[in-house]
Every structure is written in structure tokens, then in C-alpha cells.
């Protein structure tokens, strides 16, 4: 990464400048608390870098469809005193009924009461939370990763030992209860050789006013490891969500992720998957439903760095009212990554004339013996399909709903665990009704 001093400072709007200063202030107060000098130094670096690079603007190629104007206007706070009340009924409505190893954070603080006992975890699985160290930081030029480096206090580490298959999913629930609260999530997942893990992550808000989630996940999948991940983002429609996931896969490992983006005013979920070992397989899917003034941004960057790897993607967006959908996908095939098979599909349904969809499916290929393709289609509901249903006695309104639902839920076909699939289906269907 470029050294801080070599970055040419960018001019920022007064609002952006104010926001940067606010978060630098938060970072400084964290630094005052820690004993770890190396961590402080790294945080300081991140502060300087953010100051120089500034916040993303619409002018930036990667942010031209995702506006941060509203986000900048709210000064989110970390470590607010006291917790908001979590209504058990509210909680019950969002939690799955099947058994999981559950861990709950409220406003970014671990809640012992609502979580399972970590001593009761099966052997081979550990879930620990500890103070973040300088080695855990991302050190990138991405504004929200810099904010993570500046503001993360704790890091949750999940380990699955060699040859262990964890049957019950590990469930991580992040609940925001207080207005203007910011949770910086830092997650580290390591699945050792030939081990298996299913991970469910949920972010929800019970606060009336905007909250913000900023997460970074780093995952290492050793040879033959398998990880299935389901991320459900169901915040309120005035919230903000940013998540950057970095995955490194070794030979013959399998990574299967599904992002379900339902809430937030502005949400941005980015996967960076590095296929480093031969025969690794990655599948990345999105289910996104937008309404009101929401912007739902889902991005993938799939780096085929070794031969014989497969990647599949299916990203489906349904956009109603004035919502905006953004998909940006990159399949990169390095020189020598022969026999790559990369497939990326993005299909979008626009339900309203004011909805917008911006798509950029990209291919960058430096090897010749590969099969790579992307497909992308946007449109409205096919009148013929509605007519077909109506001719069979289904009311027009129901027909539209039926078709929309079937369209949106297609990525669930890949979910092998029936209980998880039913639960996700129920979560998404609730919104469509």
C-alpha cells in the first residue's frame, strides 16, 4: 500500500471534512485507552491516510452510483453508554428456530446473556473475542476499511480445526438499539484443512433513528475446507451498512456465500475472493430487494490466481419505488490460471418506473484456455407471464407477487440446508407481501 506521505491530499467538501474529523476524534479517544503502542501507531497511520485520501465521492469510479451524502451528515458514535432495551418478541421474530451456536452483539458490545456458552461448543470449534492487534488491521486505501482500522476495538475469531465438520451453524447476530450508534465489526474466520463450517450473520436495528454498521471480515480456507456463509442485512430503511469481506481459498476449498440485502438506506456489501489454490470453488449470490429511497450495492471481485478453479455467481435484484440497485462484479483471471471456469449472472426486475439499476459486470482475462462469461438482464415483469397466471384464475396482484417472489428467491435453490433455506425464504417473503 502507498505510504501515507506519498498520497496527494484530495480536496473535500466541508461536510466530508467534518465527518472525517469526527471519526478521527473517535479513533483518538480509543488510542488514549489502549496500551498497545503498535496498534496506536497503526491507527494513527489510518487516520492520516483517511485525512489525505478523503471520503469517496460520486466522481470516484467505484462510488459513482452510491451516494454517501446522507451518511456524512450524521455523526455516528461508538460505545454509547448503556444498552437500549431489546424486546424479546422483536428478537424472537428475527431469530431462526433451528439450533445454532448463537453469539449476539448489541450496539457492537458482546452480550453474554443472549449468547450461547462458549464452553459448550463442540470440540474443534472456538469462537473468541479479544482486543484487536495491529496485525489484524487491513491497511488498505478503502475509506471504510480505514475506518475499520481506526475504530475497531475487538476482533472475533472463529477457528475450525483440521478434519472437523461443525454440524450446527454458527450464528452471529448484531443488533443496534441506540440512535446514531456505530458498530465496527471485525471478524476473522479460519477453517483448517478438510474442516467444515456454516456461518449465519445477521444485522438488524431496533433503533428509530439511523445507525451504521461497518464490518470487515477476513477468511482463510485451507485445502479442502468448506465454508457456507449467509449474510442477512435487515436494517431499517434509514440505516447504513458497509461490509468488506476478504476470502483466501487454498486448493480444493469451497466457499459459498449468499448476501440477502433487504434494509438500509445505503448498503454496500463487497466480496473479494482470492482463489489461490488449484480446484478451489467459489459461489457468490445476492438476493436484494429495494424500496423507498434505498440504495443496495453488491460487489464481487473474484481473483482467479490458480488453474482449474471455478466460480459461479447469481445476483438478483428486485427494485420498487425510487430504490436504486448497484451491482459491480469483476472476474479476474491471472496469467497461467488456465482451465478457469467463471460464470457471473446479474438479473434485475424493476417494479417501478422510478427505480434504477446500475450494473457493471467486468471480465479481465490474461489466460487463454478459460471459460468465462457474464450475463446481465434488466426489465419489468413479463405481461405474458401475468396473463398466463390470470388465465388460470390467479388474481393479477397475486400473480405479480408470485412471479416476483419466484424471481427473487432463485439463489435459494443453491442453499442445501433445508432449515436455513426455509428461514431465509420466510425472511424475504415477509417483505414482498
Amino acid at each position: 500500500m502507498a505510504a501515507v506521505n506519498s498520497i496527494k491530499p484530495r480536496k473535500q467538501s466541508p461536510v466530508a471534512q467534518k465527518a472525517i474529523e469526527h471519526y478521527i476524534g473517535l479513533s483518538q479517544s480509543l488510542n488514549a485507552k489502549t496500551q498497545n503502542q503498535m496498534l496506536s501507531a497503526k491507527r494513527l497511520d489510518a487516520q492520516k491516510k483517511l485525512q489525505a485520501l478523503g471520503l469517496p465521492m460520486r466522481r470516484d469510479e467505484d462510488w459513482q452510483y452510491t451516494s454517501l451524502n446522507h451518511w456524512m451528515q450524521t455523526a455516528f458514535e461508538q460505545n454509547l453508554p448503556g444498552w437500549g432495551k431489546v424486546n424479546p418478541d422483536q428478537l424472537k421474530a428475527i431469530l431462526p428456530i433451528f439450533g445454532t451456536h448463537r453469539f449476539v452483539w448489541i450496539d457492537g458490545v458482546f452480550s453474554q446473556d443472549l449468547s450461547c456458552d462458549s464452553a459448550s461448543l463442540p470440540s474443534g470449534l472456538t469462537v473468541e473475542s479479544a482486543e484487536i492487534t495491529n496485525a489484524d488491521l487491513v491497511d488498505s486505501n478503502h475509506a471504510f476499511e480505514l475506518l475499520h482500522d481506526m475504530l475497531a476495538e475487538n476482533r472475533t475469531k472463529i477457528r475450525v480445526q483440521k478434519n472437523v465438520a461443525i454440524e450446527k451453524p454458527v450464528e452471529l447476530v448484531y443488533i443496534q438499539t441506540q440512535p446514531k450508534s456505530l458498530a465496527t465489526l471485525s471478524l476473522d474466520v479460519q477453517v483448517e484443512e478438510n474442516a467444515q463450517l456454516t456461518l449465519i450473520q445477521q444485522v438488524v436495528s431496533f433503533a428509530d433513528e439511523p445507525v451504521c454498521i461497518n464490518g470487515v471480515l477476513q477468511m482463510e480456507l485451507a485445502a479442502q475446507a468448506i465454508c457456507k456463509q449467509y449474510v442477512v442485512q435487515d436494517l431499517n430503511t434509514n440505516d447504513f451498512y458497509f461490509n468488506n469481506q476478504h476470502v483466501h481459498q487454498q486448493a480444493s476449498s469451497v466457499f459459498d456465500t449468499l448476501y440477502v440485502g433487504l434494509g438500509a438506506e445505503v448498503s454496500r456489501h463487497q466480496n473479494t475472493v482470492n482463489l489461490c489454490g488449484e480446484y478451489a470453488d467459489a459461489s457468490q449470490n445476492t438476493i436484494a430487494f429495494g424500496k423507498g429511497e434505498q440504495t443496495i450495492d453488491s460487489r464481487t471481485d473474484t481473483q482467479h490466481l490458480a488453474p482449474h478453479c471455478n466460480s459461479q455467481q447469481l445476483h438478483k435484484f428486485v427494485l420498487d419505488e425510487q430504490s436504486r440497485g448497484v451491482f459491480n462484479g469483476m472476474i479476474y483471471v491471472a496469467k497461467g490460471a488456465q482451465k478457469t471456469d467463471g460464470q457471473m449472472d446479474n438479473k434485475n426486475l424493476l417494479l417501478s418506473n422510478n427505480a434504477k439499476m446500475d450494473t457493471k459486470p467486468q471480465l479481465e482475462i490474461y489466460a487463454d484456455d478459460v471459460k468465462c462469461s457474464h450475463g446481465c438482464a434488466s426489465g419489468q415483469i413479463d405481461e405474458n407471464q401475468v396473463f398466463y397466471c390470470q388465465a388460470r384464475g390467479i388474481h393479477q396482484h397475486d400473480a405479480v407477487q408470485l412471479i416476483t417472489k419466484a424471481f427473487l428467491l432463485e439463489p435459494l435453490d443453491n442453499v442445501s440446508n433445508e432449515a436455513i433455506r426455509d428461514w431465509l425464504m420466510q425472511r424475504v417473503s415477509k417483505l414482498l407481501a
Partner: protein
Amino acid sequence: MSEATQYEEINDLLSKKTGYKEGFVTQTSVETFEKGISEEVVRAISAKKNEPEWMLEFRLKAYRHWLTMEEPHWAKANYNPLDYQDYSYYSAPECSACGGDTCAADEAKKAEIAEMDLEVAKAFAALGVPIVGSENENTNIAVDAIFDSVSVSTTKREELEKLGIIFCSFSEAVHEHPELVQKYLGTVVPYHDNYFAALNSAVASDGTFVYIPENVRCPIDLSTYFRINEAKTGQFERTILIADKNSYVSYLEGCSAPVRDTYQLHAAVVEVIVLDDAEVKYSTVQNWYPGDDDCEGGILNFVTKRGICEGKNSKLSWTQAETGSAITWKYPSCILKGDNSIGEFYSVALTNRRQQADTGTKMIHIGKNTRSTIISKGLSAGRSDNTYRGLVKILPSAENARNFTQCDSMLIGDQCGAHTFPYIEVENATAKMEHEATTSRIGEDQLFYCQQRGISEQDAISMIVNGYCKEVFKELPLEFAQEAEELLAISLEGSVG
């Protein structure tokens, strides 16, 4: 054949020099401006062409704006920043310049053709461009030949004039049809559009001006041939094509340049205006000198081409075969403003050696029921990079807009790159758009199949590649399609295994 030996063979073949037969230099006395660009140079170019005040104003406005801009580098192409003071911005064969001030007058022009420098005439003859009287009697094509900064000859003008068609050089049009030029210049590509468009607007050398009047179907193909001859000159043509109501024209463009050892700059601007019910077919076979094995000395082809389907039911179709240039940076675009208008883009882009091509199109849907089709075929060989970059934008007003995009890339060898960067922005729910992209290579089984039937490897490759490009070539006028196919074969020679 094992992978390793197969590639060795490719590399052996690649290292053989492939012929660029248009690479000769014409020796003729020329008038060339001193290197460098400044307000004086802009004024001098304008004075040389004896231009009216408004044209000079346009140039100066563009030049001043250009000074405030930065050279863009977002395209997927690597090159050292250009030194704009190291180019000459005007160069013309001397005897055709006719002392400058009478250059635009009709008599002078006619005399000029008769007296045109023999060397220049020879050059065009060698290129197979019919510009001299007797030769073009039988050809079914009218040609405007441009040599460095000036148009040296425009054929079949009288014949076209009878139909009311204006087909002349841009400089002439400025004098003879100022009302038309003023009305349309800069309306599709404004002088502040981008860095190279601004530079072009400031120092525009020559170009072609075409006007097809109402209800006229142009009976022959119109064509422009561009030739860069002088070393270290930039060519900045400005082409304007206007198809008035219910008219039709097919316009072709060809180009070449001699072999040089430094990069040469070509920054053209093309504006096409299509009115109600009119149709324009714009075809380009681009064969600029690509440079030596490392693409040193090739042409930098930074072109802004844009057309507007202004009227309802209008149609604009871009077809291009791109085989030359060290770096190509070109996005022929359609603004589909009129209801029911149609935009088409067919492209074959071939890169070999170290060539870099970043090309594609923009389809901006504004009117109702507008339709667009994009078929792009990229072929990369050698150590080249071939990029498709395109935008399909459907504005809220574009009810029932329809787009179909297909970009296929073919990689030949394991040292090249093929990339696809499509931007799709949909703001209307009734719009339907589809995008597909695939990447492949010539299958060993396909080659085996042909070879088994007694077709040599080279022929088999040529056959497969031509089949792959057929969708685009069938859009080109016949002679051009043939030329494009031949070019493809030459450029591909020895690049495949």
C-alpha cells in the same frame, strides 16, 4: 501437441515480422509547421485555411479550455504521457496548398486536382484509393482523400451535386456552407467534451463534410481515406455528416500511415446527425500503422465518434474493423433521442504484438421505443490487450427501450489479455436490456476437425476466425468486408497455434 511446444511455435511465428504493406513513405515537398502548440499556432492554422472569424473563435475557445484539462488515463492502455509540444500541428503537400489563401476557392481546387503532386497521387494509387479522374469513372464510390492535414482530392462531386448532396472537405464547407457548419459543429461533440475532442476542436486540420438533403437516397458509397505521411505530425480531422429527413447514406472510412519510429497522434472527431426517418451507415476499416514488434512508433488512435438520432424513426449504424494502431481508444456512440430510433454497433477489434485497444460504444436511450444492438468481437493475440468498454444508458423517458449486447472475446496464445467492462444503467422499468459476454479460444477439437479434412492449420484458423467475425463483416459494404477479411488474415499471420 503439448502445451509447451505449442506455445513455443506460436512465439516463433509471432517473432517473424508481419508485413505492413501500407508502410511506405511518400517523398514530397511539404509545408509543415514548427513543432509545438500555442495560441499562435491555432491562429496560424486558422489563417492558413483562411477561415472566417467564427471558426477561429471556436478554435480559440476550445484551445483555452483544453489548457485547463488533464490528459485522461482511465483507459486500459499503458503509454508514457505525451509531449504535445513535440508534434507538428499542420502539414500539407506544398503544391496542393496553393499558397494558402486561394486554397478554398472552387477553381483552385479543381486545378489542384489536376496539378496534385504526382507523388501524392502515386501514394493513393499504391493504396488502391481511386482519386484520379479516369480511374474513378467505373467505381461506384466517391472519395475524399486526406493527406496529413489537408484534403487533396474529392471525387464525383459534380455527380453528387446534381442530387443536392454536399460532399467536400471540411475546410471547403467552412467557406461554402458556413450556415450548415455553424449550425451543426460541436452540437454532438462539444469542444469541452473531452481532452482529445478539445484538442481536435482547437487544431482541427481537415476532414469531410457530408450533407444529404431531404428525401435523397445517396446512390453511391461516400468514402474518406486518411493518410498520415509526415513524421511527428498529429492528424486531427473533423468529420460532420448530416442526413436530413428521409435520406440514406453509406459512408466508409479507411486509413493508413508509414512506418515510423515514434508514436504519432491521431485525434479525430466525428459528428453524425440523423434527422427524421433518415438512415446512416458508417463503416470504418482502421489500419493505422501499429508500430514495430513492441508497438513503438505506432499510431495513437484517440478518436471521439458520436452520432445523434435526432428525428423519429432514424437509424444510425456504426461498423468497425479495427486492426491497426499501437493504441486504440475509440467509442462510436449513439444518442437515441428521436422516438423509435435505432442505434447499432458492430465491431471487430484485433490486437496482436503489443497493441492495446480499448474500444466499445455508448448507447444513450432518450426517446420512446428506441432500440440498440451491440455486437462486439474482440480477438487478442501476441502480448496485446483488447478491451471492450461500453455504456448502455436508459433514461427515464425511454419507454419500452430495448437493448441487446453481445461481446465475445477470443484469446489466441497465453500472453494476451481480453477484458470486458460494460456499464449498464437502467432508469426505466419498461426497458428491456440483455447483456452477454463470453471468452473463448480456438478449440483444439475445432482445429483437429479441420486438419483431419485436409485444411492446413493456418487456413483452419483463418476460417474459424472469419466465422467468428461474420456477424460483423456482413454489415460492412462488400469491398470493405473483403478488405477487412484480408487484413484480419494478414494481422493474424503466424499468431496461432
